[in-house]
């Protein structure tokens, strides 16, 4: 078999030959076409074709007879009939004579893509699969998760441990700590990396919408549902389903989800067809799920089904050692995407960033650096480029002692007012002399 799949389109209508040729060329197939049976047979003398798409009604020899002639030349030929003149008789005859499938024009593009892909799979594309897996393997490296702290090293170890299994994982952590990144890292290091990871934000969707989002719906399932829609469970088949904010799922959907996870099958909303799926579940929450279970808002059986292996991501304020590395990572990231020659951050700005508590965690940090990259002037980010609330809130970072709290607050006010003593003293509601004394006491210096 050739490394590039080859396809022969046999149809008397040029517009059909052109449409199909173009469609499959975009998929990387090597495509040729024939306008009648004689032309097709000539092309078959010269080479083998992986797939032959055949019309039935053609002048001269029709598709049914051509199928028999093709078989004489190539017993293994994979023939798919695509016809506007479908009848039960011709369909039965075609399939009895060994056609792979028989479809009616116009064809649903999803159906046609899957049909040809399945046909090729049947012809065993071992070389292409290996090549694809190498490419996917290279691509599937997780987006860099940055962190050198001992807490993050522990998270990395847990990722490596659980990735190779199919165990359900529960990722816990505050909002903005990177739970989805961890989920993607687990997926990328698992045997399911050749299939998608499909993320669902359960907290962002209203009750009825979530059900349809997860399970899909059939045409007519509700007013306005004119077409079938695939749900996330179906899209995740073979891969990983990532349920973010899993604690926000309503009780009815919790039950349906539990059943789907346990039985590996479900039906779309408004449908009866049983769809079998195989996916690995990773979920995330910043809620106290145990409390939700005891209060009855989260099913206990679903909780135990999902909480098999837990990974806890510490908030950024508990791993401040990671902040400089994260800052530099984001600066490089946005310097590339904005094409801006920013090379770093001033020591004063870094100090401000490290001292801040980051209630929004890494997401808030990334937003702050992105903003600073937009407003800042190369080569470095300076304190003025940082969002206002960083410099305003910095004074609530005391280590615990009253003196530390006082020092931090004075620093914050001085910086906010660009070391204007009069204005700072006014805000602090002390006189200038007192402020000067405190500056000397705490050993503060104007940058």
């Amino acid at each position, binding site marked *: 078999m050739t490394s590039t799949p080859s396809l022969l389109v046999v149809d008397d209508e040029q517009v*059909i030959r052109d449409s199909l040729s*173009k469609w499959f060329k*975009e998929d*990387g197939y090597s495509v040729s076409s024939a306008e009648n049976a004689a032309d097709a047979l000539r092309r078959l003398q010269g080479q083998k074709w992986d797939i032959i798409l055949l019309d039935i009604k053609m002048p001269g020899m029709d598709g049914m007879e051509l199928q028999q002639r093709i078989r004489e030349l190539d017993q293994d030929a994979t023939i798919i009939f695509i016809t506007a003149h479908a009848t039960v008789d011709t369909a039965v005859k075609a399939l009895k004579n060994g056609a792979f499938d028989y479809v009616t*024009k116009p064809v*649903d*593009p999803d159906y046609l893509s899957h049909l040809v892909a399945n046909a090729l799979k049947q012809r065993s594309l071992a070389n292409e699969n290996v090549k694809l897996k190498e490419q996917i393997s290279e691509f599937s490296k997780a987006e860099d998760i940055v962190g050198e702290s001992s807490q993050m090293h522990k998270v990395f170890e847990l990722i490596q441990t659980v990735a190779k299994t199919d165990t359900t994982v529960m990722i816990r952590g505050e909002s903005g700590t990177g739970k989805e990144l961890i989920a993607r890292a687990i997926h990328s290091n698992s045997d399911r990396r050749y299939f998608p990871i499909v993320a669902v934000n359960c907290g962002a969707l209203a009750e009825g919408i979530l059900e349809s989002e997860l399970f899909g719906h059939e045409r007519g399932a509700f007013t306005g549902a*004119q077409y079938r829609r*695939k749900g996330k469970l179906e899209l995740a088949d073979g891969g990983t389903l990532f349920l973010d904010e899993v604690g926000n799922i309503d009780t009815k959907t919790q039950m349906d989800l539990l059943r789907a996870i346990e039985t590996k099958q479900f039906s779309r909303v408004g449908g009866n067809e049983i769809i079998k799926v195989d996916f690995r579940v990773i979920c995330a929450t910043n809620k106290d799920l145990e409390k939700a279970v005891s209060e009855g808002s989260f099913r206990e059986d679903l909780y135990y089904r999902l909480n098999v292996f837990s990974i806890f991501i510490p908030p950024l304020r508990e791993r401040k050692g990671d902040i400089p590395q994260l800052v530099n990572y984001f600066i490089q990231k946005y310097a590339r995407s904005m094409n801006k020659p920013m090379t770093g951050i001033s020591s004063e700005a870094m100090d401000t960033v490290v001292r801040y508590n980051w209630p929004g965690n890494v997401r808030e940090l990334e937003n702050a650096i992105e903003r600073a990259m937009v407003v800042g002037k190369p080569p470095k980010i300076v304190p003025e480029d940082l969002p206002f609330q960083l410099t305003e809130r910095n004074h609530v970072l005391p280590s615990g002692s009253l003196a530390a709290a006082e020092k931090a607050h004075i620093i914050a006010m001085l910086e906010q007012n660009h070391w204007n003593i009069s204005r700072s003293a006014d805000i602090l509601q002390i006189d200038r002399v007192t402020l000067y004394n405190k500056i000397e006491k705490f050993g503060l210096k104007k940058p």
Partner: protein
Amino acid sequence: MASAIHILNGTNIGADSLNPLAERVGNVFGVKTDVQKASINIDRAYDQSRGQHNSTALLAQVLNGAQLNQEKHILVVEVDLYIPVLTFVFGEAQLNGVAAIVSTHRLQNQFYGLSHDYPLMLKRLEKEIVHELGHNFGLYHCRQFECVMRSSTYVEEIDLKLSVPCAACSNLLRGVG
């Protein structure tokens, strides 16, 4: 390499939405991208028997209007598109060519009976514009699930992919590898 990309706007989408989208598209290909008003006769491509517009016929109009100077032209329309053998297409493009077309018709949530989500439609549109332009720049479909060049036959598959090419496709765009 193309010197410019022109997004021909045949929809009601305003400049405040399309201009930033055009900039992001331009960043993917490293080519200046602008938005122009489309002057295409959409009705000429309408097929009454199907109730849809022939994508290839519209693409031919785009090609007629394009100068032969390697600038890419991508028409954005609101009507439902088809090519003869298929029930619909999201868009169509010349492989290694200068013309492409994308429809927002099946990118809108309302089409599927779901509630209106304008930002989502714009995100899908951006991905499909990059996808079709990718064909203009010589890229084939990619099997990577998150690559913008992955073939999408369901709108949910468009949502799964990113709006940029994977590393391999990016290298091909740059003429590397």
